[in-house]
């Protein structure tokens, strides 16, 4: 996009590779001028809008319960199938600067809310699309952005007004019933995903997970306490929730018992070997006797260590480091099952769950520092030799692990992402139990509200308001389109229904339930999620509209 040459006597940097002075001598103003790409003015804005539109068109077909998936192939040939907006964008390797902004946008929606990552990009694309028309009418881009911002304020107010509250039962068990609101909400968020086959199972899993770790008084959920582990094999239906911790390791010796109860766990960060000084050292052995001494010393050390562990009363050793065969043998003969090479974060999680303490050396091992749990068992997956250890009935139950199974890696990965989305939805509801109805109902309601307000505005805001309301319509329209309905007919019917019945819960019936009232279908979205979508989309639109000059340094030549 080269700006048209301007008829100025001044050297114009946009087309001047080298400017010339009066003497006809070329001079350079900016370093590497020749390799810099430059575009500015309305052309720049238009090309940005086109780039954004392309990105949002890619994502549009993934919106809603009938949205389709995309295959993404990474540079090393790894295949990924997903319909999660943030994942698609982050793997697309875009080179356009504006497209990159959209990627960050969906990423930040993902970080903050975890759901609605596709919607936010589609909405931004629609807003930019609408502003293109206004720019062509000759309206100043920043004035459009200002108008959008005012419209967004009204939309957010409207959301607050139409928001509903869901009930979170005091008794946690009640929330797990299929009739509870949390359960239904989790189910909605899974609607568009691959796991919809075992819908109820995943929804239940999500609710149970979050409620197990949630701190209801502080309305806070620490995701660190939820571990989602994927294992290949089996079907999605075999996925399950484990109330405890899984470690992707097996016992250090194959003859150790595979499961036993009433655990007292010694959590060690020192290896089972004679301690070495950290300072550089050298031991010279000159006689056979000394060599024997050394051997004895090592032997003694091993028995001493085992004795110390035994003394403390531990019956399971979890060690951050390895131990050699000698120690392994001794552990077995002393009836001390052990796990080696457990990573730091797993170690920490075990310590937290079992109320144990991490012990840095054998001398510090005391009965009080042991962790307690009811049961450990080794789980074998199918016929493969993949094993993992499960520690259950921990004293401090606030950790859960979701074990996801699936017939291939792509399904497992996608299921994990889907579960993450619904975990986020449940968490958001615990944080703020206000909801709005999905299926485009909220967008239609805001769109109606804004177009009503539009007539009250004076000046350019009137145009911006109308554009904003049209951009909001894109969401229900895409939903309808993806579900195989006639978008325009659906939208107009829904709009008139909302106005006539004064019911803001009317949305697109994506799944063919012959019911447009989303409240009855219980298709919900969180209020904070939707609000965030509107705010982020408006903010980014402003940023893109404000840019009218682009300078891209040339690719480095080396």
């Amino acid at each position, binding site marked *: 996009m080269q700006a048209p040459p301007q008829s100025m006597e*001044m050297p114009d*940097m946009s087309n*001047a590779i080298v*400017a010339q*002075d*009066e*003497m006809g001598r070329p*001079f*350079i*103003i900016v*370093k*590497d001028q020749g390799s810099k790409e430059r575009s500015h003015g309305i052309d*720049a804005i238009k090309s940005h809008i086109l780039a954004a539109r392309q990105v949002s068109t890619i994502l549009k077909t993934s919106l809603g319960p009938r949205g389709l998936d995309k295959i993404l192939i990474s540079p090393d040939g790894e295949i990924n199938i997903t319909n999660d907006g943030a994942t698609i964008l982050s793997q697309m390797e875009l080179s356009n*600067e504006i497209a*990159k902004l959209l990627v*960050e*946008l969906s990423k*930040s*929606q993902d*970080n*903050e809310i975890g759901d609605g990552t596709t919607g936010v990009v589609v909405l931004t694309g629609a807003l930019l699309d609408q502003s293109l028309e206004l720019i062509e009418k000759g309206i*100043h*881009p*920043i*004035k459009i952005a200002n108008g959008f911002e005012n419209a967004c304020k009204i939309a957010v107010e409207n959301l607050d007004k139409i928001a509903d509250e869901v009930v979170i039962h005091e008794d946690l068990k009640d929330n797990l019933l299929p009739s509870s609101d949390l359960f239904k909400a989790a189910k909605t968020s899974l609607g568009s995903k691959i796991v919809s086959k075992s819908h109820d199972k995943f929804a239940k899993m999500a609710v149970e997970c979050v409620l197990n770790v949630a701190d209801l008084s502080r309305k806070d959920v*620490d995701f*660190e306490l939820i571990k989602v582990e994927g294992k290949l094999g089996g079907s999605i239906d075999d996925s399950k929730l484990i109330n405890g911790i899984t470690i992707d390791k097996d016992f250090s010796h194959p003859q150790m018992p595979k499961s036993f109860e009433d655990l007292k766990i010694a959590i060690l*960060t020192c290896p089972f070997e004679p301690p070495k*000084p*950290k*300072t*550089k*050292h*050298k*031991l*010279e052995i000159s006689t056979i006797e000394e060599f024997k*001494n050394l051997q004895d*010393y090592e032997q003694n050390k091993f028995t001493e260590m085992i004795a110390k562990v035994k003394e403390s009363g531990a019956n399971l050793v979890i060690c*951050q480091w390895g131990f050699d065969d000698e120690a392994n043998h001794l552990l077995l003969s002393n009836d001390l099952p052990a796990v080696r090479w457990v990573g*730091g974060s797993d170690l*920490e999680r075990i*310590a*937290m769950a079992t109320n144990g*303490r*991490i012990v*840095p050396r054998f001398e510090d091992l005391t009965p009080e520092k042991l962790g307690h749990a009811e049961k450990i068992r080794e789980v074998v997956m199918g016929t493969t030799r993949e094993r993992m250890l499960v520690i259950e009935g921990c004293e401090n139950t606030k950790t859960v692990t979701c074990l996801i199974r699936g017939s291939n890696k792509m399904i497992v990965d996608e299921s994990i992402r889907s579960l993450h989305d619904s975990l986020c939805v449940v968490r958001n509801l615990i944080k703020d139990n206000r909801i709005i109805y999905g299926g485009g109902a909220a967008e239609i309601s805001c769109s109606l509200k804004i177009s009503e307000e539009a007539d009250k505005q004076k000046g350019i805001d009137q145009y911006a308001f109308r554009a904003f309301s049209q951009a909001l319509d894109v969401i229900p329209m895409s939903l309808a389109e993806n579900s195989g309905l006639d978008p325009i007919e659906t939208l107009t019917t829904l709009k008139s229904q909302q106005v006539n019945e004064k019911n803001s819960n009317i949305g697109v019936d994506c799944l063919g339930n012959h019911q447009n009232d989303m409240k009855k279908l219980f298709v919900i979205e969180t209020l904070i999620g939707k609000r*965030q979508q509107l*705010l982020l989309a408006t*903010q980014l639109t*402003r*940023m893109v509209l*404000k*840019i*009218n*000059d682009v*300078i*891209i*340094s040339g690719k*480095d030549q*080396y």
Partner: protein
Amino acid sequence: MSFRGQTPTIVVLKEGTDTSQGRGQIISNINACVAIQDTLRATLGPFGSDILIVNNNKTTISNDGATILKLLDVVHPAAKILVDISRSQDSEVGDGTTSVALLAGEFLKESKQFIEEGMSPTIITKGFRKACELSCEKIKELQVELHNEDPVEFRELLRKCAKTAMSSKIIHKNSDFFTELVVDSVLTLDQDDLNEQLIGIKKVPGGSMTDTKFIKGVAFKKTFSYAGFEQQPKNFKNPKILNLNVELELKAEKDNAEVRIDKINDYQEIVDAEWKLILQKLQAIVDTGANIVLSKLPIGDLATQFFADRGIFCAGRVPQDDMNRVILAVGGSIQTTCSDITEHDLGTCEVFEEVQIGGERYNLFEGCPKTKTVSLILRGGADQVIEEVERSLHDAIMVVKRSIKNRFVVAGGGAIEMELSKILRTYSRTIPGKQQLIISAFAKALEIIPRQLCENAGLDGTELLNKLRSLHSKGEVWYGLDFEKESISNNFEKFIWEPSLVKINALQSATEAAILVLNVDETITNKANEEQPNAAAAAMAGRGRGIPR
């Protein structure tokens, strides 16, 4: 003339040296500066647009003059002067970085015609100096002092100034929210010193801009932690805080030392000795009664678990500037040993907490007794958004700071420029000679600010400027552009205020820069060093060129 009219070429300089001189040189320098000015002009004012610059795969979107010029990678010697004045304006007053480059460019543009007509640059510079002097005097005469007797009212006045500084930035629409933040931050600082470095700005992507948090105290990101960290308590009331510059890890005491062991039994002793060293340190720390231990150097897993067992929170590898701010806030001092720490060396605050902000965890120290420092945690939809918010806040913070120190303001929106322009025009008519032309050229150049503001907003510059001129000649000092009405109004009453220092500094540096460019009539560029024939060295040379100054 023994050479029959022909002068032989006398080679004085090394071959390959580029020389340019004379009037042509001045004009080409002016052209270069004007080209830079052209790049910047679209970013001025509330309707100024942004520039997207991609440099080394890093995208920056900004409308801050200094930032853009820095990233443009200007090599032309004369054009570099513009970059430098904009940067000095940034460090001196923090705002008006675009205006200063615009003004300098415009002064040069006006003087170009005189140079072309053959006027000596010295005459022009003399006129510019005089005009600048007059303008600064006039600003000092016109400026209005802010009253700081009533703190509530003073606060309100400061907010007005901050708001004007923000008007052209991305945060314009949320300026009510941000002015509050900025004014609060600056007022919390030590009023005698006002070191803006003590306002810690942290960035967390995600969330909306208005989720930005203001913390009266210190906030820093969770540092790298070892296993056992999660078992430490994360919440304290009135904790004692110990700041260290000690590495707490089990390690070799001296890197190059070597121990020779003769007897097997010595082996264990050395191991024990090493353990004793670290445990002694840790015990000494626990004995001080501190609840929170911070260190600039790493705190290893052993220490982390040791502290976890004793209900102490620790964080290692705390960045230097965060550490400094913690000390300023909580008191105490950095300890370089673990022994002999007295009560006096420990700091304290009301509440310490680790909280989740977006996807990251932050350590917050609030309610500090010596709070002379604050932290802002910025949020926004994309990294570029947050960075631009940070730059905008920096400008606003600087403006508020200047307004507190030097409590004089003038009206913005082109009002003060129009008034100065009028005064200079009137003055120029009273003096004879070439100076008359030059001073009126200076006056004309000043109008670039309101004219560019109009152009960026898509308003009819000529019409509005004529209206302004006529009002100013009637003595309406504070009339300027009003973008809400798309017309003109009294900007002093509209509270579009800028610190007068910003204007004075901008005028002075722009004039200085213009004079500097006009006085240069020869450039001698030495040829760059010969590139090495082998490919690797050539690549290195290429790389060298790519690195900004």
